[in-house]
């Protein structure tokens, strides 16, 4: 499964890079999200995959009695996911405003117009 996920990381990164190299703003945003997903899986992989064993202590035990998934990458990713929502939301609205103001979706045309925003 690791190999599949490694492949998936590569694919998500490729897709993300390809999308942010486009001239369309929406694609830029989608590319960001792809990159974020790829990075999350990358971090997840670093914590050694453990199938079905959440890092939660069972029942009345006070210590782990069984194998458990690495909690640190999970905590990192959880933070990353929530933050990426904030980023995406902000970027979408920014994009919307830029589109409203300039009437263009072409990133290339932004550096030509000297806008009085």
């Amino acid at each position, binding site marked *: *499964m690791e190999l599949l996920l490694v492949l998936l990381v590569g694919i998500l990164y*490729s897709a993300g890079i*390809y999308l942010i190299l486009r001239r369309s703003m929406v694609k830029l945003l989608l590319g960001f999200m*792809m990159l974020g997903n790829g990075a999350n899986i990358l971090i997840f992989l670093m914590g050694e995959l453990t199938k079905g064993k959440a890092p939660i202590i069972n029942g009345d035990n*006070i210590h782990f009695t069984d194998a458990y998934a690495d909690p640190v990458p999970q905590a990192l990713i959880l933070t990353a996911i929530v933050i990426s929502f904030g980023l*995406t*939301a902000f970027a979408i609205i920014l994009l919307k405003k830029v589109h409203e103001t300039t009437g263009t979706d072409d*990133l290339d045309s*932004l*550096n030509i117009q000297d806008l009085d925003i």
Partner: protein
Amino acid sequence: MLTLIFLTFVLGFGILLLKKPVQTKFVALISLLPFSIFLYLLSFLRSVKDGVNSVLYRSEWIPSLGINLDSKIDGLSLLFGLLISGIGTLVYLYATSYLRGHPLLHRFLSYLTIFMGAMLGVVTSDNLITLFIFWELTSISSFFLIGFNNEQEESRASALWALAITGLGGFFLLSFGVIVGAITSTYTISDLLTQSDVLKDSPFYLLIIVFLFLAAFTKSAQFPFHFWLPGAMKAPTPVSAYLHSATMVKAGVYLLARFTPILGGTMEWSTILLVVGGITMTYGAFHSVFRKDMKGILAYSTISALGLLVFLLGIGTEIALYAMAVFVLAHALYKAAFFLITGIVDHALHTRDITKLRGLKKYFPLLTVAAVIAALSSAGIPLTFGFIGKELIYESGLHYIDYNLSLVLVGALFFTNVFLTGSGFLIGIKPFFGTPIKDYCISHKPDWRLIAPPVVLGFFTLLLGILPVIAYKEIILATFSAMNGAVVEMPLAIWHGVNTSLLLSGATIVLGTAVYFGFKCWNSSMNVVERFEGIAPKNIIAFIVEKFRQLAFRYTWVFHNGYLRSYLAVIIVFFIGLVGYKLFADVPLSVNTVGLSEFRTYELVVFLITVVAVVFAINTASRLTAIAATGVVGYCICLIFVFYGAPDLGMTQFAIDTLTTVLFLLVMFKLPAFLKLGNSKIQFRDAIIAISFGILISIITLQALVSPADKDISRYYAENVYTLAKGKNVVNVILVDFRGFDTMIEGIVLSIAALGVFSMLKYKDDEE
């Protein structure tokens, strides 16, 4: 001493506020400022004139780095300090009349005062770093002075040139100071005197002196950096008189003289100085007689004189150092007078073209006397101080250790002096004698403030020429001792009997007069030198600068073209190149299949769905499909999290993915449709970049999997989750307890995003 310098700076800035008072006739009182400094410096004569003692002031600035505001006054500092303040007094007086009624006079005086303070700092600093700071301050303040007529384009250009060249030298001075400091572990110049051998034996010796020379040569307008000086003549004449004859350009010479006892006396030292000084003095002298503009003549003869001083330091014998000390003084006296006279003539007749000036004796009798004295001193006629200097210069050439070489040296000196004599006559004699041209209209008579300074300078030239012993006893001996490192008596005298140097002096005067008559009436003389303009260093450097600018422009256009995606592409390609190279060159690539788990069919299905969704997201022409496909990718990842023991992640990913998709859908109809900008070539290129990046990341991930992960932190959290935090879900406990502070910051970040969105949308609403 330091207090004095800082006081000068404060006053310099203070003058800026005195716009009104400066325009009154009491402005001449401002020359009391340099005059009081002059008097104060005179009081040091008693302590240092024996050449053995010096006055030290120590004050700490950054003691941990060895950078202190130390000052030291010995003969050398004092000679320059007296020139700076003494000629400064005359220049101030002169300038108040020369620029009378100028709306920016207060600004001019302010720059001049700051410059004077910086100059005094240069010659009294006893710390390499402090010296560098004052050195740069002189460059900067002179930039403002040269560009004072800032509405003229030429003026601005020459100010920039001067700043570029002298500023470049400043960097070398700093590098010099740092290297010397690193070798000797001190920045204090007087401490370096005892470490002379350490520096000379150091493998960096050549580097050190080359850096020092570059600093000195740029400042002192030595070949091939000389060209900024004629350009700097765009400055108002008092500035030229002050900066470009007597003080700033001599700072380079001062620097060389200051380090002569520390670094001098070696083969490399003398060779470089002799060659550069020799070229500069002959080149400058030869060029000077071809000019018609009085300031042009003076600029080139000043370059020549500076070359001569460097040349004498290159000879480096005791007598040469004496000659250098005397010539610094003699040159400052007559050259400043020349400049001031030029200014008066220019002011009165609005021309500086010597071919158009004749018979001014009738209009300016007193000025003629001063001019003639200066001309005679520059020619080295007995009873002027210039004569004493010229004798010593020839003596030092004749007594060089190597006889064969000494003939060459004397030849060069002779050539230089002949042409300097000629150019001196062109300035000091030519405009004043002969039949006056009829239609002169003297626009305004010069007042005493203009006439007095050159006359005073002429008086000192004669006084010291007749009684050289005064100069010797008071200052020259001390100056010499500071450069030589030991006291050697060699009294100056007018008459040494008939000897070779006297004969040479005589021949110089005769030939110089011949040169003068040869060039006096030659109107087209400029054409001769203009033919060689193409290979003049100025044009070569200007050419290089222009090419460099073009290169920078093209370079910038390639890498900084304003297109976001090309920046990204460049960054990514560089990343791929660098990391990829490092990875394949240094890391032994291997795949550890032992610890890897198998995958089940349902996992493969999830994987395949993800891949298909990614392909859809890239390829589709519909925004809705792209957004939906991105959502599908997110849900698949959510499943992967759930499979591998991360229910928290799964839940969060699911919720976030849902919300993001909703968000997209809410604004989708406000978002632009995808552009149809299909350019298959670019798409192909980007695909290559993207795929190589993906492959690189995959390889890095694989390699990272091979190396065992450090589980200490995870284990610590897992073992203490209940005992320390009374929780059982490690992920949540990390978030709210172990790393709670991070979570709090994250909350703030989210709030900022929400505020950003809110204000962006509401801002528009309010506008409507």
